């Protein structure tokens, strides 16, 4: 699904990622844990193609395509989804029309017609219900004035809607209370179908108690310093990042 080879990334002339290697197979759930400021979010932004994130060396293969050569929207259409740590506000754009437009962009790239309004509403209702999202949230402007929990739920709703093959979650647990964390994780777990892959970036163990990973990597000094199974996450939680 995804293969990162010898990746060096710099942001504003500062090297953040150094010789990163990571392979994620279909259906696998990987977690990257690391202390704050270690640059783990840089992985997410680089994979999604954020401008100013400069790939200095190495390459990334996604579904047998050279990911780095593609524009951000092409990566999305290819099936890469990034759930943002800080979802962006779009004043004046209602959530419903935004969701419909991004869905239609994906349908178009698959050669399908734009979705019928009635059908869209049906899908929206069903998926919102799974996340305990009230329908009136969709007549508000995208993320504008949303609480932290609403923003994160809206991210999960979008990943559900766009049916991606690789989901990168950047600190999705931050800003969520226990109830929201639970319902969000449940919605994410429903998307685990054995084919879809996940890369979960988090500082804490708690998200991984709900979304249990197959592989855990510890990130430090721009690279993966240790890999293991889910027990590694518990150890980190007990001992902290400093102890190895």
């Amino acid at each position: 699904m995804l293969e990162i080879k010898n990746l060096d990334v710099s942001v504003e002339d500062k090297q953040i990622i150094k010789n990163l290697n990571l392979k994620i197979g279909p259906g696998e759930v990987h977690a990257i844990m690391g202390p704050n400021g270690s640059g783990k979010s840089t992985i997410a932004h680089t994979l999604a193609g954020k401008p100013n994130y400069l790939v200095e060396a190495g390459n990334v293969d996604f579904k047998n395509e050279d990911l780095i050569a593609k524009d951000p929207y092409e990566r999305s259409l290819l099936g890469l989804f990034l759930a943002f740590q800080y979802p962006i506000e779009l004043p004046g754009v209602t959530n419903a029309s935004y969701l419909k437009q991004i869905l239609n962009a994906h349908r178009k790239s698959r050669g399908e017609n734009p979705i019928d309004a009635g059908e869209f509403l049906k899908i929206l209702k069903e998926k919102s219900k799974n996340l305990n999202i009230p329908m009136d949230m969709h007549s508000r402007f995208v993320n504008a004035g949303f609480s932290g929990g609403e923003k994160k739920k809206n991210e999960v709703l979008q990943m559900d809607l766009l049916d991606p093959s690789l989901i990168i979650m950047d600190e999705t647990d931050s800003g969520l209370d226990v109830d929201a964390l639970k319902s969000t994780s449940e919605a994410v777990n429903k998307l685990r179908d054995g084919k879809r892959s996940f890369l979960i970036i988090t500082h804490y163990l708690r998200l991984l108690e709900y979304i249990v990973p197959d592989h855990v990597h510890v990130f430090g000094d721009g690279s993966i310093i240790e890999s293991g199974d889910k027990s590694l996450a518990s150890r980190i939680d007990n001992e902290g990042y400093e102890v190895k």
Partner: protein
Amino acid sequence: MNKVNKENFKQDAYKYGFVTEIEDEKIPKGLNESVIKLISSKKNEPEWMLEWRLAAYERLKSMEVPKWARANIADIDFQDLYYYSSPKDFKEKPKSLEEVDPKLLETYEKLGIPLKEQEALAGVAVDAVFDSVSVATTFKEKLNEIGVIFCPISEAIQKHPDLVKKYIGSVIPVTDHFYATLNSAVFSDGSFVYIPKNVKCPMELSTYFRINASETGQFERTLIIADEGSYVSYLEGCTAPMRDENQLHAANVELVALDNAEIKYSTVQNWYPGDENGKGGIYNFVTKRGLCKGKNSKISWTQIETGSAITWKYPSCILRGDNSTGEFYSVAITNNHQQADTGTKMIHLGKNTKSRIVSKGISAGKSSNTYRGLVNFHRKAENSKNYTQCDSLLVGSNCKANTIPLTENNSNTSSLEHEATTSKISDDQLFYCMQRGLDAEEAQSLIVNGFCKEVLQQLPMEFAVEAQKLVSISLEGSVG
């Protein structure tokens, strides 16, 4: 955005830039008494109208072109312009669409304005003005049945002289300023609307202005009168061919709302903006003013200004009637080398008058975009209120946005509220949308349409979708 598409976008950017190959008939170039007499005789005008024009011309001789706009305007040689152009042999306006030159029908068809009633947008009556003449007006008879007069102003001067005499120049005095006076002397065609007492006009009325002939100025004159208790929604659209020369469009639009009447006036202005290097394009110097003459009357201006090399206009409301309301909703988009200096004046004269101004300026490329507004409370305008909101959005770093809001408050009991913001489309917003599968152009268009939403939703539904598309198209090529 891949390269192939971007090239296409450039070619498509102004899709109304074609020229209709039709023989035209111009009167000699230049501005003088005989030209004015010729225009008047072409229109079969009564003597009083000619005298009115000549008086305006007399006054014009001692007036100077105003220079205060925040725009670089090349000097215009007013003697080197044609003031009247019509399709050849256009002696009299065709009685029915069957008699209209097919080339003209085809032109409007290409502009997306089918004139055949069965093909036309349901619920929209159209007056089609081609250079200096109205070539067709749809649904006239149907409107006539309920007493609504909707016809070219040249026809109204002949058929409804009392109404025209009473109201023309009553809102914009003949001597107002250079371009208004020039228009009064040489105006050719535009629309006339009269809504009788207590009639809610059942259709949108609209005028479509098309400049076709070269080296020709268009001097439209529009007069709308809403009698007591009536309502009308009117929309104008404008396009012109792509040419290297600058062409002048100097219109006067007067609105009069009597007791309890409401006029909603919308403009979608898409004159040719000039090319990427700022060559050519329309000079859009327009005077628009509405008089809320009666109590509880309301005038609402909505404008979507995307075209023209230079836009220079301030649709205004004079709130004379007690409890009257004035509104101004504006989206002005400038790209490449376009310049816009636009805004409104709200003159509060009556008691309990209210006004609301929402202006959204979007600048891209090397353009310049100025909001200029005046809110004035007269001493007698007790308990009056104004709310002003001016938002500017910058796309890129080579454009300019200015906000010049003036207020004059002579009433102790009146209040003003003003909010202004300037923002840039953030890279984060673009990246967020692109991460969800929208390309750069789509992402920008989504964000900009969100920024304009408050204004766009004021437009009649039939035109809102078109306007949204226009907003997107106007900014094409401005994303990196």
